[in-house]
């Protein structure tokens, strides 16, 4: 049976706790607090109460019939994480960690955000539970995702622009970590993906793993068996990890993680860490990273702010090395194609992040047969991306 991470927070050679000494006690305290709550019936009952009555879980597993016909090949099902409150899977983890913050007796929360989805989800959970919230966001991403910045502010969060480096997600994580180092005594860091020092990759995975558990049950109710393949987009990799984890021991289920290929892997302008990266240490964890020969982290490039990250969750690095998950990539163009395809065939506008999984779908579905099935983790909805997409594709409303 698959059991990761080990007691020191490593997934094979990956993971670990590469943080300054000032943070180590907080990281150890978090581990202890998480071990207290993870099997505590009261905590889990509260978590599930909010997931059901507030977030709107469980999310549907929808058979995309027109998309299936259009592509020709395996049957396609969509796990509708886009229907969650706040529009993406991010709320699952934000809520779980906000409850954990309260359990630890802390009253303040810091978070980073790329596309703004995790920032909005964290601001939401903090408003719900009466926690103070500060969100770091790259200045470039603020430009790309203005509406999400305003949403966070409406929810009572303070949004801090980060101008360093590429002014995107990586730099927002740096700044959130620095803020945490300086305020560690009363502040919890709600990290947004399965990245960072142990126990974050484990906590975020566990708080997202209802995605896979629900999928397993719903698919079984519909068909009486397991799906043949799962597919999810990957930046840090939290929606993918939540979907994959409950299926890791089901050897018949193939799993595909789709990274952001940006302008194409060969151009060097991409965010496909597992395809084009090398092992190293960043943001508290050992994993694959986009970096130069000198160990300097290089800038990721993707049309989607949420995938624009030069690292990846350490558990994905491990699942790649043990050949359990196949990691592929979809370019900006593939994602735009996927976004249009799903909008036109099913009336669902996906987030640009999720559109990467859709973009890779034709290749996968057509290589499979009609009696096989694929479940796509539709991690978020596209409302936030409409402006970005319009800037690329144009539209009738241009005067």
């Amino acid at each position: 049976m698959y059991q990761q991470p080990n007691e020191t927070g490593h997934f094979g050679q990956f993971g670990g706790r590469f943080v300054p000494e000032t943070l180590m006690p907080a990281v150890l305290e978090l581990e202890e607090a998480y071990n207290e709550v993870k099997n505590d019936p009261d905590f889990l009952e509260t978590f599930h109460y909010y997931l059901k009555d507030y977030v709107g879980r469980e999310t549907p597993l929808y058979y995309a019939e027109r998309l299936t016909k259009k592509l020709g090949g395996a049957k396609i099902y969509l796990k509708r994480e886009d229907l969650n409150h706040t529009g993406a899977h991010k709320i699952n983890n934000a809520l779980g960690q906000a409850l954990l913050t309260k359990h630890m007796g802390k009253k303040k929360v810091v978070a980073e955000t790329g596309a703004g989805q995790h920032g909005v989800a964290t601001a939401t959970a903090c408003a719900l539970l009466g926690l103070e919230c500060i969100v770091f966001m790259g200045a470039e991403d603020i430009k790309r995702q203005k509406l999400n910045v305003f949403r966070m502010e409406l929810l009572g969060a303070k949004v801090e622009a980060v101008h360093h480096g590429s002014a995107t997600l990586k730099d927002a994580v740096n700044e959130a970590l620095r803020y945490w180092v300086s305020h560690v005594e009363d502040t919890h860091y709600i990290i947004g993906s399965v990245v960072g020092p142990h126990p974050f990759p484990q906590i975020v995975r566990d708080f997202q793993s209802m995605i896979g558990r629900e999928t397993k049950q719903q698919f079984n109710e519909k068909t009486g068996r397991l799906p043949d393949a799962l597919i999810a987009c990957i930046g840090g990799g939290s929606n993918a990890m939540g979907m994959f984890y409950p299926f890791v021991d089901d050897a018949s289920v193939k799993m595909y993680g789709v990274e952001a290929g940006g302008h194409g892997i060969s151009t060097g302008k991409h965010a496909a860490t597992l395809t084009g990266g090398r092992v190293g240490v960043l943001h508290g964890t050992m994993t694959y990273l986009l970096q130069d020969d000198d160990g300097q982290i290089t800038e990721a490039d993707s049309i989607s702010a949420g995938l624009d990250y030069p690292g990846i969750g350490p558990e994905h690095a491990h699942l790649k090395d043990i050949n359990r998950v196949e990691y592929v990539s979809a370019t900006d163009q593939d994602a735009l194609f996927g976004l249009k395809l799903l909008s036109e065939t099913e009336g669902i506008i996906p987030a640009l992040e999720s559109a990467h999984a859709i973009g890779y779908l034709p290749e996968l579905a057509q290589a499979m047969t009609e009696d096989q099935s694929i479940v796509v983790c539709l991690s978020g909805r596209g409302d936030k991306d409409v402006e970005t997409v319009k800037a690329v594709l144009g539209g009738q409303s241009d005067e």
Partner: protein
Amino acid sequence: MSKQRLDARFKEILARGDKLFVPYIMAGDGGLDALNERIQFLETCGASAIELGLPFSDPVADGETIQEAGIRALKSGATVQGVFDTLKVSKERNMPIILMTYMNPVYRYGIEAFAKACVDAGVSGLIIPDLPMEEEQMITDILTQHDIALIRLVALTSPTTRQEELKKRTEGFLYAVTVTGTTGERQTFTDRVHQYLAHLKNGANTPVLAGFGVSSEEQVKMLSGHCDGVVVGSRIVKAFHEGDRAIIKAMIEASKQST
């Protein structure tokens, strides 16, 4: 010889009744050509050893001054190899060099190769702020084989048991972080600092140096009074960048008078 050079020099300075003063400079800030001259200048001023920053793109333990110095260094073309090559030129210097960098550049270079390069360049020790004791076994044996000191950082947030363990493990000196935060100048320190330093001094096998936030002559004197000396980073980096070397001299002088 590497580690011993550092230990011997500290011992000699402390035996004279002086306090230790370790300035931090960023390798490649002002160009790598400036590096050996800056080391020479600090030696002339009476520095005890030099903490030399190897620039890294994502320095999460550092505040703005050192972040910006790192960006300037990388823009000027500084590389890990370039820094080693520059240091090699004057490897017979008296001044011990301690490299401060993050884990990723070390890992990319190769841990064994990095340790060998340290020996070839006359480097005595390493400070890696994102390598807590939970992860250090990936590097400790190799550093021991090559006689490179791994200087441990202890923090105000470290519980007593961790403080004791770090005290036991550290080599060269114990780096007592005096703020709960990143590097960078501070006006004041928490009242707990004195007690914290006194506790660390008690039973320590190595000198204890206070660092992070130390930025004035008064602070140098005040903190040195409670331990074996100080590390000064951002203030020195700023002084070199602005061409105001008088303040560096003044701070090192202040350290000599603080016994």
